[in-house]
């Protein structure tokens, strides 16, 4: 690994993973001078008894839960009316911090509430990149394993608009094995694909960022080694905890680079069709790497290192590292069986909208990817993986 001439890396969250991690929440809140959080969760989280476990973890502490709002729909987008209600609740109860339990829109909503209560004016004024100028209230994210894959990143989607700011990182990420429970194989595959895309696109770029690579490589390795196990046995505690760790690291890694082609296209397609992001990104990922090889663009050998570890990496000759990593990745996606679609045709995406998707993806990636590349990839993805 070479030291680049210059690089920038930022990571706000403290990760607390493992047994009794939730019992550390009151210490973390106290260290941020907070003791009355607003807790957001989805109805599913309550139905599975996880909010009860959370409340019990705060017994015998100085933390009073300002309010527990558990009516967020986890796989819908965060909407402004619900956000306004929560801002009112936050202020009425005199809360000083926010805790989100779950994933997807719960976290988006929590980040939205945090923007609204920490800043003045209309929340939609803060949409876009780096529009938030001051530190927000303490925010703790408690993972339940059911997530979209980028909860730990510096972005949020509210009313389908993207908010990006380093202030949107959670302050603390709690990965407690009591909270990370079994989920459907489909959800595990989709969330993992989002995280895998984020991690690979943040480390497979031609220039390297050593800190980013560390996070991304661990995330890729955890997903590669544990996803198939979790798909076979969704109740696996160790596997689910490893995946939750991978999502956390992928989110942080992804926040330090502009989105890549697969992530941007995945978001654009998901936004338009309402399909889960993971489904769109899953099969696009190996195709995009192959597309890059076809264009004689380099893919760093470290990708193979992340997938196979030191021994596997050393066994493959230097010239074959790129092709081997793509083959492994393709095989990995195939091994997921029928959990992910294999082409855009199968997903019934409208072909005439490709140009619009390409334009949106190019804009989201801050022109890092061109519309032409996006169109080429979409054309290949129409027929998909053979």
């Amino acid at each position, binding site marked *: 690994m070479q030291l680049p001439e210059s690089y920038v890396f930022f990571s706000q969250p403290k990760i*607390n993973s*493992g*047994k*009794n991690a939730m*019992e*550390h929440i*009151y*210490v973390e809140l*106290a260290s941020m001078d907070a003791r009355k959080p607003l807790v957001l969760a989805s109805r599913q989280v309550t139905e599975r008894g996880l909010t009860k476990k959370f*409340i019990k*973890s*705060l*017994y*015998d*502490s*100085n*933390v*009073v*839960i*300002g*309010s*527990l*709002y558990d009516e967020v729909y986890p796989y819908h987008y965060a909407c402004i009316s619900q956000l306004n*209600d929560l801002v*009112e*609740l936050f202020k*009425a*109860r005199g809360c000083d911090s926010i805790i989100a339990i779950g994933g997807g829109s719960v976290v988006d909503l929590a980040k939205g509430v945090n923007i609204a209560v920490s800043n003045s004016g209309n929340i939609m004024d803060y949409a876009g990149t780096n529009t938030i100028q001051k530190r927000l209230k303490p925010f703790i994210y408690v993972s339940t394993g059911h997530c979209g894959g980028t909860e730990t990143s510096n972005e949020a989607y509210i009313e389908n608009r993207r908010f990006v700011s380093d202030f949107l990182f959670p302050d603390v990420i709690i990965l407690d094995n009591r909270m990370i429970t079994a989920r459907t194989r489909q959800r595990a595959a989709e969330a993992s694909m989002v995280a895998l895309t984020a991690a690979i696109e943040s480390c497979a770029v031609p220039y390297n960022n050593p800190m980013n690579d560390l996070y991304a490589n661990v995330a890729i390795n955890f997903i590669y080694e544990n996803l198939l196990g979790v798909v076979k046995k969704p109740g696996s505690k160790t596997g689910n905890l490893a995946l939750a760790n991978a999502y956390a690291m992928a989110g942080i890694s992804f926040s330090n680079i502009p989105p890549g082609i697969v992530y941007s296209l995945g978001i654009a397609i998901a936004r338009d069709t309402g399909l889960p992001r993971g489904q769109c990104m899953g099969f696009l990922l190996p195709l995009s790497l192959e597309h890059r090889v076809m264009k004689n663009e380099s893919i760093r050998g470290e990708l193979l290192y992340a997938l196979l570890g030191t021994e596997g990496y050393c066994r493959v000759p230097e010239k074959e590292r790129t092709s081997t990593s793509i083959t492994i990745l393709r095989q990995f996606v195939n091994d997921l069986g029928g959990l992910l679609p294999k082409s855009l045709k199968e997903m019934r995406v409208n072909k005439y909208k490709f140009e619009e998707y390409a334009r949106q993806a190019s804009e989201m990636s801050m022109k890092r990817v061109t519309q032409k590349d996006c169109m080429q990839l979409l054309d290949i993805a129409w027929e998909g993986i053979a």
Partner: protein
Amino acid sequence: MNIDRYPEIPPKDKFIKKAYVAIMLWIVGRAMQAASRVDPVVKEEFSHLRDNFLLRLWVAPNGPSMFVGKDKNGKVKYMGWNPRGKKTTLDMQIKGIEQAVLMFTFQESTAVATSNDRLIVSGDLDDACAIVRILDIVEIFLLPKIITKLAVKRYPKWSQMSPLRKYVGRVLVYIRAFTV
């Protein structure tokens, strides 16, 4: 939105766990005092600590605590649980009652608990290391091998602690801890 549907939730107390940890702290405190009189290694460890040494081992934020320190004559003494009027030189804080239960039910050894970020220590690191070593020896005296193995970093071999020292020490520590 009807705000009353989402009331405040104050934290409840965990009385049973607190009582269990309080009893364990009392036993450990008394046993440390007894071991300092009975066992030459514990005596040696304490002799290197400063004259006004006072340890507070407690459970945050408002859980049970114990004080063990040297009195005016330099003798090691269990000094109860009340912090009033005491000036500690070494403060070992267990982050919460659940973490304390993990430690005192021997699911986690002191070393593992420290590495899992369950303890906050204020004071000299030398003193803290000495106390961890003393706690290990005290646990060896107090508990049968099968449990102690879970609680200490390394269970001593015969060459490190002779059976005579162990069993005689165990009897004397129990007698002194619960009687004197």
